[in-house]
């Protein structure tokens, strides 16, 4: 778990990272010196109670972001083995929200695998916690990339973070996804690739993405663009594909 937490600590503006369970028990933490174990345990308990209340109004909550005068708290739900865990990032005002969103999403995916007893990714989250303790290494971006060699999907010109696995039916479908992410990035920024991955899971949840559901994907992604003119431009650009 420690390398995952450390990878978030490496983000500009992040001052502490906590993982706790639904009962508020602290499972792991990293942070600047002032965020000692006692403080983190205390905060975990308070946050768990807050999330219990959140659950009453928003049972399917995924992320809670609290904006303070001098910083932010980002809480990301991680369900592993049917149990809710919470990845919490404490940051000052210099945090880049877009980049942090992607990084937290990636870290949450790795944390889920660790909590479920599997490896986070190649070279991450394996071995005993004692062996991992103190390690400040974070995975190179390439280590968290899906194997897309046979898919025709290339993300290299879009971004190098925020990747999770998507499967495609053929190289043309992969190329189309890459184009979607590139076009969408012009309107929503670096989180575009994450949006594309999520949209693929929505429009083609059971089978590899294919051009048969391309129209549905464009419509789904268009909903991520607030400005109507931008949305039309995005849809027109992809309609040419």
């Amino acid at each position, binding site marked *: 778990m420690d390398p995952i937490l450390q990878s978030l600590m490496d983000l500009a503006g992040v001052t*502490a990272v906590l993982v706790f369970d639904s009962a508020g028990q602290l499972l792991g933490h990293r942070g600047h010196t*002032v*965020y000692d174990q006692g*403080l983190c345990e*205390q*905060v975990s308990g*308070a*946050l768990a*109670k*807050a999330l219990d*209340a*959140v659950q*009453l*109004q*928003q*049972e*399917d*909550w*995924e*992320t*809670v*972001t*609290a*904006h*303070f*005068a*001098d*910083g*932010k*708290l980002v809480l990301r739900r991680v369900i592993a083995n049917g149990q809710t865990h919470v990845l919490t990032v*404490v940051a000052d005002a210099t945090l880049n929200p877009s980049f942090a969103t992607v990084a937290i999403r990636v870290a949450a995916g790795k944390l889920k695998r660790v909590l479920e007893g599997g490896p986070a990714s190649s070279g991450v989250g394996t071995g005993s916690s004692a062996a991992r303790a103190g390690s400040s290494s974070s995975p190179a971006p390439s280590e968290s990339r899906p194997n897309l060699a046979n898919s025709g999907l290339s993300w290299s010109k879009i971004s190098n973070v925020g990747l999770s696995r998507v499967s495609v039916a053929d190289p043309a479908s992969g190329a189309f996804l890459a184009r979607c992410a590139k076009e969408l990035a012009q309107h929503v920024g670096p989180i575009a690739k994450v949006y594309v991955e999520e949209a693929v899971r929505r429009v083609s949840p059971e089978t590899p993405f294919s051009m048969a559901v391309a129209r549905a994907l464009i419509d789904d992604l268009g*909903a*991520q663009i*607030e400005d109507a003119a931008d949305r039309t431009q995005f849809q027109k650009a992809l309609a040419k594909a």
Partner: protein
Amino acid sequence: MADLALIARIPSVASAVLGDLAGGFYDAIREGDGESVASVAAFVSSALAGAGEELGLGALHRVGIAGEKRALAVVVLGNSVVIARIEPAASLAAVERALDAAVGTGG
């Protein structure tokens, strides 16, 4: 005091509730159970504010709660709390910006 009608007119705001940090309920638009929403939002805001204080983050301004299909935005204005239910969830960021403009916060 926030103008709830103005907030309820923000695109993608499905309902809006006005309460206070003590759990009091003042008003609601398109929300059937405003009292519950206000009390839960007050508790969440108070708990997060307490955690933020412990962590040295200063005063709590705003909370965004995102789910798969819908979201909630909670804005703290002194002792008052404004809660907006947002559908779809993807509109959360846009609504938060509109809320900041509507209630005059920059949080």
